[in-house]
């Protein structure tokens, strides 16, 4: 609890190796994906510095990838804002299980919240801090290491992409693959057909109504369908899992 017993430098030296070991899977993932992001961004004709800037300030893989296409076609700020909100809306769940652990985080709390990506959340909720060290520092080390990997990958990708003329045709499929992976994760977690039916119906409607504003229309229609089906969906979810109480 009290970190006044420790000399600060020594405590970081205890925390960092453990945090680094825990973060190695993220190191592999973020440098690879960041590289793909930087290459795709430069190939789309956007300036190379945008890649590190986004990695430092936004730090959200799926949203950054999505932004490439939006910026390329000069999408409106409102559309960018709404799509970011919907895509990153899933992050709003993460904090709920970290309210307690972050309560004593003090000056680190804003940064820990900033860094709550899918992968950081996954680590913070599964890895244990080594004994006798301040949990906040352990969390901060993991978050900062993860972000440094992402910045490294994104920067390297855009630099390599602008220095060499690589044939990156097809690399932009990484975004589609990322969405498919996230969808598979959702199918594993939400074993009900209503959300997917709502999504498909909404997509078909959006194709006919306004292909230009496809995402906005599809999301609006899907949200409407979901709201209409709420009672039914929750009833079925309850019937499926009679013991459902706390877990969300």
């Amino acid at each position, binding site marked *: 609890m009290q970190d006044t017993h420790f000399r600060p430098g020594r405590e970081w030296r205890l925390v960092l190796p453990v945090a680094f070991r825990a973060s190695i899977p993220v190191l592999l993932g973020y440098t690879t994906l960041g590289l793909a992001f930087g290459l795709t961004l430069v190939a789309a004709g956007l300036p190379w510095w945008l890649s590190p800037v986004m990695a430092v300030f936004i730090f959200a893989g799926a949203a950054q990838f999505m932004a490439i296409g939006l910026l390329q076609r000069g999408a409106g700020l409102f559309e960018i804002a709404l799509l970011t909100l919907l895509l990153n809306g899933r992050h709003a769940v993460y904090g709920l299980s970290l309210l307690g652990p972050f309560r004593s985080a003090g000056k680190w709390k804003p940064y820990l919240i900033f860094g709550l990506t899918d992968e950081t959340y996954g680590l913070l909720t599964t890895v244990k801090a080594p004994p006798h060290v301040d949990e906040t520092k352990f969390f901060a080390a993991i978050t900062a290491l993860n972000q440094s990997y992402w910045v490294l990958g994104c920067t390297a990708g855009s630099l390599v992409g602008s220095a060499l003329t690589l044939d990156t045709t097809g690399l932009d499929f990484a975004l589609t693959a990322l969405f498919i992976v996230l969808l598979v994760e959702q199918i594993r977690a939400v074993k009900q057909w209503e959300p997917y039916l709502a*999504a498909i119906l909404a997509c078909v409607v959006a194709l006919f109504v306004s292909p230009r504003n496809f995402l906005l229309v599809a999301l609006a229609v899907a949200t409407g369908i979901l709201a209409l089906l709420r009672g039914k969906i929750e009833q079925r979810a309850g019937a499926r899992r009679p013991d459902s109480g706390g877990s969300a």
Partner: protein
Amino acid sequence: MSYILLAVAVMTAITYFTRAVPFLFFAKRQPPSILGFLQKYMPPVVMAILVFASYKDIDYRAAPFGIPALVAGAATALLHFWKRNVLLSIVGGTALYMVLVRIL
């Protein structure tokens, strides 16, 4: 240039907001039930729509008839159901796609 920076600022603010929601609003009180519902059921909807959107602009009437994207997408999904390794699924699916668009 200023458009790009403005867009980055907007995305930074919105992303931070989504991550801060529980700390801002629910540190002391229970979240309303509709939020719990949306938290659970919006992500599958959003992801399904984003996958659909990735496939909607492909020309399926001209060669290669969308085959690279469909095959690589199916491979990505199967790989992820099987191994559940995010990096493996994305790198594997993308590599397959890059090969297919070159040979088909």
